[in-house]
């Protein structure tokens, strides 16, 4: 039976219907969010859900308007996510390189220790970080947030890049050594070109995790350095008011990351499982 014929066999049509039903059910809350974003405030706030209405960009305009708030938080989100990802990569690449190609007796210990820091819950270090940040003026400061996001993602990033480096044949490094290349040259000319796709997906994963992070952003910022999750959370007590605007702001906050996430599905799995599932 050809693959095409198999797709249309009785059982698979039944599974197809079920699969689509489940997928749409999972996606329904997001569809409803998008639909609400295109309504007026009056239409968004009705006892009987309005399915037929004149779509309007009013709420998007309100969110994006001067003083609407979105841009300030969006800029902070972009800046903190990108900066923490870049700093993370700068710290990750040399560390992963050293452990993958120059393993010592302590390498295994170091790797396991790095994972273990991931399991210190954020609340476990909340109090001292809050007090120290308050003392040295890093409270409500983007760089304070960037440092936290870098620390939060670093173990996952190192593990992920390490697992990509280990897939590179060691012979290549040895050949470069015999040819008299320095460590820096080997890294730049041999390893990095081969690992570029791996580094890109590691960066993507760090970007997504930093963008969606809310605990540190809620506790460590007030306004100046606040990111999109703080902005969205500020709608939490708006009982029935600004639902359409909230929806529009939410759509604008999650759409870019959902699109990136769809591209990075496999890499997310690999990174979040510490390279155990590829």
């Amino acid at each position, binding site marked *: 039976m050809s693959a095409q014929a198999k797709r*249309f066999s009785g059982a*698979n049509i039944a*599974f*197809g219907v*079920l*699969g689509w039903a*489940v997928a749409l059910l*999972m996606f329904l*809350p997001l569809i*409803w*969010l998008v639909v*609400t974003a295109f309504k007026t405030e009056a239409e968004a*706030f009705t006892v009987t*859900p309005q399915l037929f209405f004149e779509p309007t960009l009013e709420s998007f305009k309100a969110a994006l308007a001067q003083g609407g708030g979105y841009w300030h938080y969006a800029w902070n989100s972009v800046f903190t996510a990108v900066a923490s990802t870049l700093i993370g990569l700068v710290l990750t690449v040399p*560390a992963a390189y*050293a*452990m993958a190609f*120059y393993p010592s007796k302590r390498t295994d210990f170091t*790797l*396991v220790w790095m*994972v273990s*820091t*991931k*399991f*210190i*819950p*954020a*609340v*476990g*270090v*909340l*109090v*001292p970080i*809050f*007090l120290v940040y308050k003392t040295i003026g890093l409270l409500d400061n983007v760089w304070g947030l960037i440092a936290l996001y870098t*620390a939060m993602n*670093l173990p996952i990033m190192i593990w992920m890049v390490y697992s990509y480096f280990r897939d590179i044949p060691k012979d290549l490094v040895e050949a470069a050594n015999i040819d008299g290349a320095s*460590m820096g040259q080997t890294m730049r000319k041999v390893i990095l070109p081969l690992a570029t796709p791996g580094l890109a997906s590691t960066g993507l994963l760090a970007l997504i995790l930093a963008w*969606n992070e*809310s*605990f540190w952003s809620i506790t460590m910022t007030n306004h100046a350095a606040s990111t999109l*999750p703080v902005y*969205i*959370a500020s709608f*939490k007590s708006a009982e*029935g008011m600004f*639902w359409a605007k*909230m929806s529009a702001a939410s759509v604008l906050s*999650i759409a870019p*990351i*959902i699109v990136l*996430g769809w591209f990075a*599905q496999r890499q*997310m*799995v690999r990174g979040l*499982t*510490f390279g*155990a*599932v*590829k």
Partner: protein
Amino acid sequence: MASTTTHDTATARAAARREKARRAPAKWLLAPAVIFLLVWMIVPLAMTGYYSFRNYNLMMPSITGWAGWTNYKILWSDPTFWSALGITLLIVMICLAVTVGLGLALALLFHRNFVGRGVARTLAVAPFFVMPVVTGLIWKNMLFHPAYGLLAWLFRTLGLEPIDWLAQFPLTSIVTMISWEWTPFAMLVLLTGLQSLPEDQLEAVRLDGANKWHEFRHIVIPHLGQVLYVVVMLESIFFLTSFAEIYTTTSGGPGTATTNLPYYIFQGTFVQYDIGVSSAAAIGAVILANIFAIFLIRFVAGNLNAGEAR
């Protein structure tokens, strides 16, 4: 004879020195990352431990000094702490059961070959990429709301009394939201596991005339065992620290019905300003996370050695 031995040791020593020189830069490459993690994770953790033995309340700056075990004793006799601990564990257990169960079912479903499978799977995965704050507000306002939510409308259409989900079933509501976000993750990882099933083994049992259940029980499940383990351990770490979903919807209430450990510590720090007691609770949270983490780390370390044998 003696001279050759000396010569050999000299060569060996020279080789060792060369090897050491070659490795020397490796240590410096590793240092920045290690120092960064020390400064941002380990030093604060030590400070939390220190504060947990101090009298330290931002509202009462005059009371300072060593507290001994007082902060821990206060926690021990605080019923809210124990309920927070119980709620934390409940959230972890129920969310694990739901996400792994549904995730496995969905993975098996999306492993089938049907029309538009790729698109359907992509839609089903989307909730995982939604920021938890948005998840909280979507469910609170658009689905759970007793008057204007979709569920209330559905109940009225069916002639039933609408339910105020967040007030009447607060913990169920929180668990539903977290599971909505994490089922796609379990599904994705398990699907990746299914796709790497050893085809030859499947062929072999099929030739032996094994039925579907037999195939599932004896080939699929053992193969997925490792993958399942990763999902369970990883999710438990995230579920232990659930915060945004609670912060945006119930704020820990009604009463303390949805106050888990992270939320309890958050309130202790930013509402009661009690640094000492909050730190003691934080140490409790770290211990709890480590009980879960020990299993994962053992697994990761085992995986590391398996990788070496490759």
